[in-house]
């Protein structure tokens, strides 16, 4: 049958063999793609559908002793752009950027630029961060309308007490590129991460930071999120417990702020431990300005603040508060005669030079009166009797001119003043120097913190503590990462009765005379005023104090410095009173509560 047809069969066979060959080629390529290159394509497919967003962990809290939260976190949203796979029209991009711009205060041009960059790299990009929850409704709607927009809930730093303890807490800000290079190796920092820039925020950055989370999002080709594949939850940073008493801290700040100039420093120490109960330094700032909700106007780099911490960096002559040292030196060297009385005519002469007292106090000025009235004449004479060397020795005993060792960067050591020091500097010591030294003027300089440590040493009869302000650092799981205990640096040993004498004198200063401004009913307040001469302007007012319940050991030591505050009695003493009052109010209300609880 086949023979009747002259089919050109070999050409058909050629074509069929060709079909088989192309089938073989196709099979080879299929095996190559699906078997040999399987891994490569699998990772590409994963890359296609996965977008990773980092989620900043909430920083650890910073707390005061009473549990008050000084630094916490607030909900804030970040708006991300997840690039679609197909290049969208320029028109749509402009539309998106305009819509986002309208709701976030960020300029349309910037947003468009970020979107374009993101499209180029294929990676998710942060459009706007720190969005307030009240802006979210409009943005959530946009998210539904335009694929590619994604809102992520994060947190931002918030300081409920505003400027309170700003110098201690510090602030956070976007890190510099150089810092990122250092830190990115250790912890999960990204270029736009915020880090502590000063204070506790900087010192405990590692502990406060926590671990950032990561969201693995599955996105479709339009950039719309279809599901969350994996959620590596963030871990909150460790909490830092400070030794601060929030009401006392507030009182200290208010007291300085409401003084004549509103500038100055106040330090409150726990006499029994050296813990810093309050440390105020004004001018200060509100650290919240570095972490505001997005309003389009904030520009971190333009903010100017005074990071100068007067309490540890401000150096001032101790002035009349130093008379306590002169008195102790005299007592120690046996030259102090409590019965001796001076006649203050308002000045004395030494080697033909006139040295003035701030007031002509008249006759019958004994030691207590001299202290009460802060009579320079009395202490000129006492200093001459005691000798400058003994006074210098007493400064050294109380560690003047040396850092207190508080764990804060930039602490100043101040300096000691006396003949040995002069000799080291290869200059001469004159009699007039002794007079200046006796009343605390001249080259001697102290920080308010040193003054407070000194006050605490007087109060505790010679115990010099290393001041500390961090009680402990506790991880979220409750593990204590760091704990500070009080550290006795030195026990000053003086002749018996020396401290009792000073206590008596300082009590009567507050009760009867120049320190009256610090007097509080039913509280034993000990204090000494000081007026540091300032050749460049108004004098600075000092007040050194410690206080305790009536007939009990002193509990707190306070130093107040009002910059340009003129007299110590008029400005610094009332400020100290407010601070001490705040401390005891807090203590008594706590006692009362405890008593009620017991009942």
């Amino acid at each position: 049958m086949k023979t009747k047809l002259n089919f050109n069969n070999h050409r058909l066979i050629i074509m069929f063999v060709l079909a088989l060959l192309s089938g073989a080629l196709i099979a080879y390529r299929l095996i190559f793609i699906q078997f040999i290159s399987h891994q490569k394509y699998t990772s590409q497919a994963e890359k296609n559908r996965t977008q990773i967003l980092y989620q900043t962990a909430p920083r650890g809290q910073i707390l005061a002793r009473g549990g008050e939260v000084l630094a916490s976190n607030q909900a804030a949203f970040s708006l991300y752009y997840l690039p679609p796979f197909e290049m969208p029209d320029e028109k749509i991009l402009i539309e998106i950027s305009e819509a986002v711009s309208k709701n976030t205060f960020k300029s349309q041009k910037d947003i468009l630029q970020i979107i374009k960059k993101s499209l180029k790299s294929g990676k998710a990009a942060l459009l706007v961060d720190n969005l307030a929850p009240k802006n979210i409704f409009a943005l959530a709607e946009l998210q539904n309308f335009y694929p590619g927009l994604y809102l992520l809930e994060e947190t931002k730093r918030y300081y409920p007490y505003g400027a309170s303890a700003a110098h201690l807490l510090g602030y956070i800000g976007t890190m510099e590129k150089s810092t990122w290079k250092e830190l990115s190796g250790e912890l999960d920092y990204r270029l736009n991460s915020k880090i502590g820039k000063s204070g506790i925020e900087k010192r405990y950055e590692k502990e406060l930071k926590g671990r950032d989370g990561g969201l693995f999002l599955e996105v479709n080709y339009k950039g719309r999120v279809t599901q969350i594949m994996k959620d590596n939850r963030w871990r909150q940073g460790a909490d830092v417990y400070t030794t601060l008493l929030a009401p006392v801290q507030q009182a200290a700040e208010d007291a300085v702020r409401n003084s004549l100039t509103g500038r100055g420093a106040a330090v409150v120490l726990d006499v029994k431990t050296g813990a810093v109960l309050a440390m105020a330094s004004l001018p200060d700032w509100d650290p919240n300005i570095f972490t505001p909700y997005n309003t389009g106007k904030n520009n971190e780099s333009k903010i100017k603040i005074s990071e100068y911490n007067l309490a540890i960096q401000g150096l001032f002559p101790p002035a009349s508060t130093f008379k306590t040292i002169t008195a102790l030196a005299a007592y120690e060297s046996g030259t102090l005669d409590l019965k001796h009385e001076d006649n203050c005519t308002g000045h004395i002469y030494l080697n033909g030079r006139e040295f003035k007292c701030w007031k002509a106090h008249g006759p019958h000025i004994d030691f207590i009166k001299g202290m009460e009235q802060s009579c320079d004449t009395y202490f000129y004479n006492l200093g001459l009797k005691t000798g400058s060397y003994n006074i210098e020795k007493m400064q050294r005993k109380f560690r003047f001119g040396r850092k207190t060792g508080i764990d804060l960067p930039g602490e100043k050591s101040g300096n000691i003043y006396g003949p040995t020091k002069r000799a080291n500097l290869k200059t001469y010591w004159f009699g007039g120097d002794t007079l200046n030294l006796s009343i605390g003027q001249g080259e001697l300089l102290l920080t308010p913190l040193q003054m407070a440590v000194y006050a605490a040493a007087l109060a505790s009869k010679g115990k010099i503590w290393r001041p500390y302000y961090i009680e402990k650092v506790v991880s979220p799981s409750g593990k204590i990462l760091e704990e500070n205990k009080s550290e006795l640096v030195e026990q000053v040993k003086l002749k018996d009765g020396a401290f009792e004498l000073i206590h008596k004198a300082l009590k009567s200063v507050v009760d009867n005379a120049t320190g009256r401004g610090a007097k509080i009913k039913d509280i034993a307040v000990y204090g000494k005023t000081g007026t540091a001469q300032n050749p460049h302007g108004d004098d600075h007012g000092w007040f050194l104090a410690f206080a305790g319940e009536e007939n009990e050991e002193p509990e707190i030591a306070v130093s107040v410095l009002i910059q340009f505050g003129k007299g110590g009695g008029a400005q610094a003493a009332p400020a100290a009173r407010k601070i001490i009052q705040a401390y005891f109010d807090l203590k008594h209300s706590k006692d009362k509560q405890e008593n009620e609880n017991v009942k």
Partner: protein
Amino acid sequence: MLNNNSGIKTRKLDWPMIYALIGLCVMGFFTILSAVSGTKEMVSIMRTHIIALPVAISAFVFGWLFNYQIYAEHYKKLYAFVIFLLVAVLAFGIVARGSHSWFRFGGFSFQPAELCRIALIVITAAFLAARPRQIKSFKTLAIFGAFILPVFALIMMQPDFSSIVVTAPALLILLFVAGVNIYYFVLIIAFVLMAGIFPILWTYIGLYPEVLDNSVILGWVNSLSFDIIPCLIFSGVILALFIIGWFMLKYFRIFVPFSLTMVLAFSMVAGFFGGYFVNKHIKSYQRKRIEAFLAPTADPKGASYNVLQAQIAMGSGGVLGKGFFSGTQSRLGFVPERHTDFILAILGEERGLIGTLFVLGLYILILWRIVFIAQNSSDLFGYLLCVGIFAIFFVYMAFNFGMLIGIVPVAGIPLPFISYGGSNLVSSMWAMGLVEGVYFRRLSLI
């Protein structure tokens, strides 16, 4: 083959082919379902497909039972019908995706070009079968050219480039197997090469202009694309070379008819100008496809995006695949045209290498069965009809698989029985029915 076994003798259907078709259609159904699941079009697409399936089976039964030899007598009417359809679609059809190629009645649309692809095979087979003695003659080829060109012109007016891409090679294969003089193939191939190489070269130069720096020849080739004078010089050079070549061959006592030499030379010149014309009128998306083929990694998000994503889908499927409805490339929309031209990518992602090799195997099986049936057909028309249908499915397979694995540029060619598309499914099933019809009547003597 016809001895002994009475079972084969009386069999009315070639069952291996039927099984292969059922296998492909089932694979196709589930792959389309997976490809469109979760999209807005899912319901309408699946509904259309479910309606198209019985229509396609009817078309198969029609092709099988309706005596194919009737087409041989009435192929001119069929030709007239094809022309009518193509004119009508230009006049009354709707525009979808930039081409004027759809009829729409009620809720359904129909693409006449799909039917015409098969009809052209039928017509050509009938035309050649009608003049078995003159197949080798130039006149036959000329007549063939005369009636095929208007059809192509009408298709290009839609425009439906992919129909040409499928039909033209299939018709060439049919002519070749039918026994057309090999010399004419040399002419056609010379024409096609000239028409194809130059646009590709120009596109390549456009992609990598730096190649012009050190190449005199390429610089000159480039100048051909925009200046008519070098084109004329180039044509003259071709003619001159052929004339010189003819004289040289004559000198070595090799005699080739001068006329044939000149026809070849003119066909090359014509091919060159054809390429020139194509280059001037090519659509920008078509040029992008050529660019993507020439440089697939140059712009992964641009023109080569489709192929790259399809390959990622297939490659990530591995040997066993990710399972139905589990392909991420598919589900998340990274593979474009995923229920039509690129459906193999979805199959590869979800059913793995096993799935793609299975489909490939079924295609080879079908091709083999068509060849087998062709060899057993009872008349020349049946033989040529089977060869034509073999050719068109060979082209479908080679181009659709080839496009996915990166050896052929993207041309928008579906994979029959797997891809979604009612018109294609129905006309492909009709074609299979025709082959079964030839098998059914293999023992008849007309």
